[in-house]
C-alpha cells in the first residue's frame, strides 16, 4: 500500500526536518506505530491530534458538595451498607433521592436524547451523531439502521451551578461540624 507511506519528496522533507529540528525528531520517535498520513500533494498542516486532558474538577466537586448538602449523597456512598436491611437502606435512599433530585432539577435541566418510547422500533438515519446515539448489538450494514430503542439517553439542555467566590475551597465537600454546648 504505497499510499500509506510518505512519498519520496515528503520523505526528503521529513529527513531535513528531522536533521534540523530536535523537536520534530522527538515527535517522530514517540509515535512509531502510527502510519504517517500520506499526502500525495504538498504536505498540508496536520490538525493537532485530540489531547486527553485532565477534566477540570471544580464544577464536579461543587456538584458533589451540593448533593451531599441537599441529599447526604457522600454519606450514603461512604457508608457500609452490608450491615443494614433493605428497609433501612430504602428509607435512607428515599432521603438521598429526594434531596439530590431537588438539587439536580434546580441546577441541571435534562431531557431524553431520543423522544420515542423505550422498546419501540426506531430508525437511525445516515449522518447521525455517534455521540448522541450509540449503535449496539449486531452493528453491520449501512444506514439507515433499524433497531429497538433500548435506552432513551439523557442530555443536559441547561446547567447553571452557583458562582464560586475566589477563595472557596471546593475540596471541602462538607465541613466538620462541632456543636458548642
Amino acid at each position, binding site marked *: 500500500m504505497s499510499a500509506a507511506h510518505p512519498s519520496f519528496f515528503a520523505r526528503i522533507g521529513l529527513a531535513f526536518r528531522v536533521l534540523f529540528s530536535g523537536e520534530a525528531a522527538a515527535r517522530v520517535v514517540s509515535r512509531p506505530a502510527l502510519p504517517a498520513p500520506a499526502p500525495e500533494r504538498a504536505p498540508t498542516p496536520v490538525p493537532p491530534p485530540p489531547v486527553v486532558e485532565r477534566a477540570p474538577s471544580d464544577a464536579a466537586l461543587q456538584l458533589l458538595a451540593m448533593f451531599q448538602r441537599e441529599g447526604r449523597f457522600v454519606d450514603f456512598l461512604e457508608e457500609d451498607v452490608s450491615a443494614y436491611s433493605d428497609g433501612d437502606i430504602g*428509607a*435512607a435512599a428515599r432521603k438521598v433521592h429526594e434531596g439530590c433530585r431537588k438539587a439536580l432539577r434546580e441546577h441541571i435541566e435534562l431531557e431524553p436524547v431520543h423522544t420515542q418510547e423505550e422498546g419501540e422500533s426506531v430508525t437511525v438515519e445516515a449522518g447521525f451523531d455517534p455521540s448522541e446515539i450509540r449503535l449496539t448489538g449486531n452493528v453491520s450494514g449501512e444506514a439507515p439502521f433499524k433497531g429497538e430503542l433500548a435506552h432513551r439517553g439523557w442530555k443536559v439542555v441547561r446547567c447553571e451551578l*452557583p458562582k*464560586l*467566590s475566589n477563595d472557596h475551597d471546593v475540596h471541602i465537600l462538607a465541613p466538620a*461540624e462541632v456543636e458548642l454546648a
Partner: protein
Amino acid sequence: MSASYAIGIDLGTTHCALAYIDLDLSEGESLAHHTLDIPQVVSPGEVEDKSLLPSFVYLPHPDELSAGAGALPWNPTPAAIVGTLARRLGGKTPGRCVSSAKSWLSHSGVDRTGAILPVDAPDDTRRISPVEASTQYLKHLREAWEHKHPDAPLAEQRVVLTVPASFDPSAREFTLEAARAAGFGEPVLLEEPQAALYAWIANTFGSDEGWRDQLKLGDVLLVVDVGGGTVDFSVISVGEKDGGLWLERVAVGEHILLGGDNMDLALAHTVKAALEATGKTIDDWQLRGLVHGCRDAKEQLLAGESTSVPLVVPSRGSKLIGGSLRAELTLEQVTRVVLEGFFPKVPVDAAPATTPRSALTALGLPYARDAAVTRHLAAFLRRQSGALESEEGTFLWPTAVLFNGGVLKAKAISERLLDTIGAWLSADGAPPARVLGGADLDRAVARGAGYYAYARMTDGVRIRGGLAHAYYVGVESSAPAVPGLEPPIQALCVAPFGLEEGDLAELPPQELGLVVGEPVRFRFFTSSVRRDDRPGQMLSRWSEDELSELGQIEATLPTEGRAPSEVVPVRLRARVTELGVFRLEAVPRDGGHVWNVELDARQ
C-alpha cells in the same frame, strides 16, 4: 432622570420577592412583567440566583466563616448574611439568626428600633432591631436589582412595597423607615390583599375573559391571604362610577400571627410524639428537619397523591442509614391537625379565643391564641356586617373569594375554606360565593405591587381605599380623682374611617395642652367598625369589640420661639400623605408651625 421600571416588592414574613414592569415595553394592558432572580449566598462561597429571598439575617461569629464565605457579586465582605445561607445556618445555630422580623415590626409591645433580635442570642452576639433586619432584606434586594440593572438605580424607579392590610400606622412607618435606610427613596405602600387582587386583574389582561367580564356590579370580594407567618383578610366591593367598574377596599381584618409555619410545626410535633412513644428521642436539629419533611409531605397528602408519606429523619453524623429515624405522616394526621386544627368547619357565630392585648411587656411575638383560621374569618365577617349599606345578613356576605399565600395552594385547604364560607352563606339565606382562580399564589403579591406601581402612573385599574380604621386619642376626663382608681378615659376621634390619600382630616374642636420641650404621651386607639365617627367625637364608653388599643403616641413641641414649660394649646389633626402614609400632627391655636406626633413612643 425618569423612571424606566415600575417595581413591586413583597417584603414577606418568610420570603421576599421583587417583580417589575419595563415601562418602555408596556402600554395600557399589555405588560412586560418580570420577576427578578435574586443573587444570594446559598452555601459558604457559593452564590446563586433564586426567585425568592428567604427573610433571614444571620450574624456570624468572627471566627465562624472563612473570609469570602459571604461574598456577593457586589460586595466581597458583607457584614451580615441574608437569604438562603442565613436560613440554612440558622437551622443549626438559631441564636445568631433573625427571622420573622416583619412580625416584630408590627409588635407594638417592643422597641422596634432597639437591638433586640435574635431574642435568644448569646450574650456576646450583636443584636439588631426589627427595623434593621427589614433594612437588610430591602438593601439586599436593592443591591441585587442594581447589580442586574446598573443603569436604573432603584431610588429613581417607581417602587411599591407591600405590607399586611392589618399593619397599624406605626408598623407602616417603621417599614418606610427601613426602606429609606436601605436607599429606596420614598416608596409607596400597598396592602398585600389588594396586591393579590391587582395581580389577579393583571393576569386577566389579554385573556378571553378579562376581569371586567368576571366581576360584576355589586360583587363583594373576600381576599383570604394565608402566608408563612400571617393571616390577612380584606373585603373589596365592586361598584360603578362613570360607566366603569369601581373597586373599593371596604374592610380589613385584625393582625393575626398565624400561618403555614405554625401548621408545619404542629405536624412535626405530632410525628415527634409518635416517635417518642416508641422510645426514640429527637433533638432540636432533627425536629427542624422533621418540620421540612412535614411541609413537603403535607403538600403531597393534601394534593391527594397518597394516604401516607414516609418521613426519614436523618441523623446529624455521617452515618446516614444507621442513624436515621423512620416515621410516616398519614392523610388522617394531616386532616386532623391541619384541616381540623387550623380550618375547622365552624358556624359563623364561632368566636376565636382572644389574646388580651395588654401583655405588652412580654418579649415574644403575640401569636394568635386560637389557631383556627375559620374562626378568625367568621369573627371578621361578623364584625364587618355593617361595612356595606346594602347588607342585610348577620355577617358580611362575600360573593367571590380570592385566595393568596402558599398555604392555600393545597386544594383541600382552599376547598375547606370555601365549603365553610358556603355553609355560612346558605345558613343566612345568601347565594354561594365563587372563587376567582388562576392566580400564582407565591408571587402574586410582588406582581400585583408591580402592577400598582405601573397603574399609579398610567391611569390603570385602581382600588380605592383610604383608612380602614378610625383613630382615637385617649383623653383623661376631668372627673374628680378617686384614690386608687384610674381616672376614667375618653376617646377623642382624630381620624375618620376612609380618609383617603392626600386628604386632611377635619380639625377636632377640642384642644390639648402641650408643654413646650417636654414629651407628652397619649394612649392611642383604633376601630375597624365605627365608620361614622367624625373628628371631634368623644366616646366615653365602648365595647371591647369596637376599639382596640395601639401603642402610645408622643408629641414634643420644640422650644424655638417659646418659653420652656409654656403650655401651648394644640389640636390634633390626621392626614394621609400622597404616598399613603398616616400622619398625626399637632396644630397650635395660633396657626404657625405644625409638628408631627410620633406614632410609636417608647418608655
